[in-house]
């Protein structure tokens, strides 16, 4: 029988500029021994720029575990504020090394035209920051 208990560990990151990729670099807690599932969702912010309740892709996320030794893959991140939005986790079976890094990159794909960011790279008033959260369903041994 597997020892430990399941916990849900969120990693939030903020997107401040539509054209600049975001680097993800954080140490996972020592008590996490295994990743059982992964889900990445938009949390807040996009709704202030769009009246839609669903956008299929707002960005691409690439994730790596165990100090870049394991590449989980590339994920499309949707914006989905509908009640029927999926809350499923992607299956994963990743044994986590103690104190290892969760790394990756996020590239925004929406609101990138000149109305939101000028040629000098400075965002306009129309741009609103938004937050994406990576949820890790983990086996914890604390």
């Amino acid at each position, binding site marked *: 029988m597997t020892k430990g208990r*399941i916990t*849900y*560990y*969120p990693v*939030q990151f*903020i997107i401040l500029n539509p054209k*600049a990729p975001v680097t993800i670099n954080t140490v996972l807690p020592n008590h996490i021994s295994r990743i059982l599932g992964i889900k990445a969702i938009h949390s807040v912010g996009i709704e202030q720029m769009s009246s839609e309740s669903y956008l299929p892709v707002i960005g691409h996320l690439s994730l790596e575990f165990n100090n870049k030794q394991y590449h989980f893959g590339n994920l499309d991140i949707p914006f989905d504020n509908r009640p029927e939005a999926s809350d499923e986790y992607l299956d994963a079976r990743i044994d986590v090394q103690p104190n290892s890094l969760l790394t990756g990159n996020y590239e925004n794909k929406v609101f990138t035209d000149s109305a939101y960011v000028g040629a000098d790279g400075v965002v306009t008033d129309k741009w609103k920051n938004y937050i994406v959260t990576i949820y890790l369903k983990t086996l914890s041994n604390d």
Partner: protein
Amino acid sequence: MILGYRFQKVKLRISKAGQRVYFNTETDKDFTMLKGIALSVGYEGALYGSTFGFRVDEKEIFDESHEAHLLVYSNDISPNSKMLLFEMPVPVKSSKVEGIYTDSSLQSLLGNASYNPSGGVISRNEVNIKKTYVSGKEVVKFSNFTVDDNLVAYAGSGSGFGGGFGIGAAPAPDPAAQVYYPYDVRVILFLSK
């Protein structure tokens, strides 16, 4: 006769924007497994950006920054489709359970301009504005809860995204996503023998 399962409920009332509501209670002594959890709200518009942390016997199941809408059923969604069922049921025996619901907590992070120019991971210290779990010995009775009035967001002028980090510097909510207060949240624990 006692059934083999029970849905134990705790009711919370959110009276104003940014309010944090803490509760603790203990699980029914006749049941030994916590198999799932769900939140039920009468007003779904309040959910986005609100968070719900949860612990059993002082061990964390959800971080305080876990988004509430991932655990919610409402009139549009049947309980079994949104209730989070634990793959490994949590053993309980009159266990202490604690929760903290924070209204609009993630919106308060959008105005932070102190990250890298492009953005990045938000540190745990900023996400969990204040660790609220209490390790006291007293167990408050079922459905009793406390309100932390010191942590009320949107106390500022609502000047948009120019302010630094702080609860009072939260951005003004989008009119399209206007939230009406008060609203009630029910926490439902799925217990079995």
